[in-house]
């Protein structure tokens, strides 16, 4: 198991290298000259060619492309993502608190999604075809089909405006979490509980369940065996879901004015603040790699067959 973890972790190094290279190349493919963006942001009335050349030198853009990349990548390793073109402050100082806020929202939502998906999936699988199973699937289908921004608006109108129970936006107290978490949970749990359900149903028909029953094992023990095997699929999906939620909070954060990464990224895209966009893409991609690796390791711990396949 130890050697598996080492091998799996070493695979992430080339992956992270490729991601960083792609991020850098794609941003640099933009037709806009960063130097012009910086000068425009500083509201300089007359942008001369001289000024542009000067700024380019300041940003290190007169050097060869590969040197530029290496400088940037090495700085990123020290969590130095450069300075914002617009505010002039370091990217880290604006992205770190926003990232933390998004992480808080993602964490609370993910816990709700995972708990709800497993609970509903198990209930539906054990009552396959019965009323509980059918009604849960029906309701979840209805809720998942609703666009999250629409559901969010309806909930703000009802709970915050009409009943005045919860804040409409911002991040002030635990109450601010309730609405965004519900909206995110509703749109994802409805998808993920189906995976848990179908995986459990296919395990229920396995021979080891029959043999366990035939050996006189208690239903509780048998259910634990079924869960252990069915959750393997679910765990990898959950681990991949966390970065997806992290990235897709853009909509929710804008609706609820959550001071997170999603809002910051939209703001930066509109003002063409390249260093922040670059850092945002890189952080999200690294999160994907990290969670994917984590899910592989957890799965290998649960499923002995996977350990040798590397």
């Amino acid at each position, binding site marked *: 198991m130890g050697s598996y973890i080492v091998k799996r972790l070493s695979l992430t190094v080339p992956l992270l290298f490729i991601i960083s290279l792609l991020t850098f190349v794609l941003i640099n493919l933009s037709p806009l000259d960063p130097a012009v963006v910086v000068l425009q942001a500083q509201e300089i009335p007359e942008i001369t060619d001289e000024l542009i050349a000067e700024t380019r030198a300041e940003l290190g853009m007169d050097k060869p492309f590969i040197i530029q990349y290496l400088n940037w990548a090495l700085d990123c390793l020290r969590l130095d993502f450069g300075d914002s073109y617009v505010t002039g402050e370091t990217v880290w100082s604006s992205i770190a608190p926003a990232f933390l806020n998004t992480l808080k929202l993602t964490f609370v939502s993910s816990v709700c999604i995972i708990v709800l998906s497993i609970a509903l999936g198990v209930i539906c699988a054990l009552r396959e075809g019965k009323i509980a199973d059918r009604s849960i699937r029906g309701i979840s289908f209805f809720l998942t089909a609703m666009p999250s921004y629409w559901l969010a608006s309806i909930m703000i109108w009802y709970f915050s405006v009409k009943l005045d129970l919860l804040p409409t936006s911002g991040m002030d107290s635990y109450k601010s979490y309730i609405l965004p978490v519900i909206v995110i949970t509703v749109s994802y749990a409805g998808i993920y509980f189906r995976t848990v359900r179908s995986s459990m149903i296919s395990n229920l028909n*396995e*021979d*080891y369940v*029959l*043999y*366990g*029953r*035939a*050996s*006189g*094992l*208690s239903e509780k*023990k048998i259910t634990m*065996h079924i869960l*252990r*095997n069915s959750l*393997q699929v679910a765990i990898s999906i959950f681990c991949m879901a966390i970065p997806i939620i992290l990235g897709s909070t853009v909509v929710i954060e804008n609706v609820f004015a959550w001071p997170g990464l999603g809002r910051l990224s939209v703001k930066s895209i509109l003002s063409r603040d390249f260093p922040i966009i670059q850092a945002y893409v890189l952080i999200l991609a690294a999160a994907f790699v990290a969670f994917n690796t984590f899910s592989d390791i957890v799965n290998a711990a*649960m*499923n*002995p*067959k996977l350990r040798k396949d590397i």
Partner: protein
Amino acid sequence: MNILEVEHLKLWDANRNKVIIHNSSFHLKQGSCLAIVGESGSGKSVTCRAIMRLNKAWIRQSGDILFKGENLNHLTEKEMRKRRGKNLCLILQNGMRAFDPSCVVGVHLKETLAEHFGWSKSETEQRMKKAMESVMLKDPLEIMNKYPHQLSGGMLQRVMIALAIVLEPDIIIADEPTTALDTISQYEVVEQFTKLRERWGCSMIFISHDLGVVKKVADDVLVMKDGVIVERGNIHAVFSEAKHEYTNYLVSSRLALSSRFKKIMGEEM
């Protein structure tokens, strides 16, 4: 004396409203081996699972299943669970799939023995070791620490037999235990079954469609076709003078196969 008497067993699929077994009655004598033969879908497995009440929820059953005079059909689920494994022990066809793939084989053995006898880990290991050695499994402790995919089908089959030896059940129900095995493992497993009978004298129901194996292990035989028992009796009687044409067909096709085999072998030698 009969250890098991099945009277008017009827099984039907409640979802599709289809009768699977119409009206089966048979008995198993103490210490004897009853073989059930027939093609796939003839109702062999479903009959045996009905005895253990292990069929899917939508397969309903009626009739009497008397085990030592006690009607298993009337027991509560909890009482029935105590009989499973301890009194009635099932051995499945595919050893590879009979054990939880994400646990080592020993986990199932320990859980089963803890459930029925409350034995500790070391006691389980000690008893299993003895039983596994008796079915020719070398390094029992190592096998118990292996995952199912690391062992062969024949080995897992013998682990199941070893568990049955430790459980000392009144009846062993073997559901096509040799079908998924290659010829050599098949031979070894059949050997263990005959030994099991000689040494422990336990009663057995042996489902198979391999008449050669059946002839080696069983005393009596039931021939099933489309959910109906078409022929029954002593194994030699049934094999030599079958009354039903289906049995005749089974026996003659087996003879045709083996005579051709013998002829080829004779010519080459």
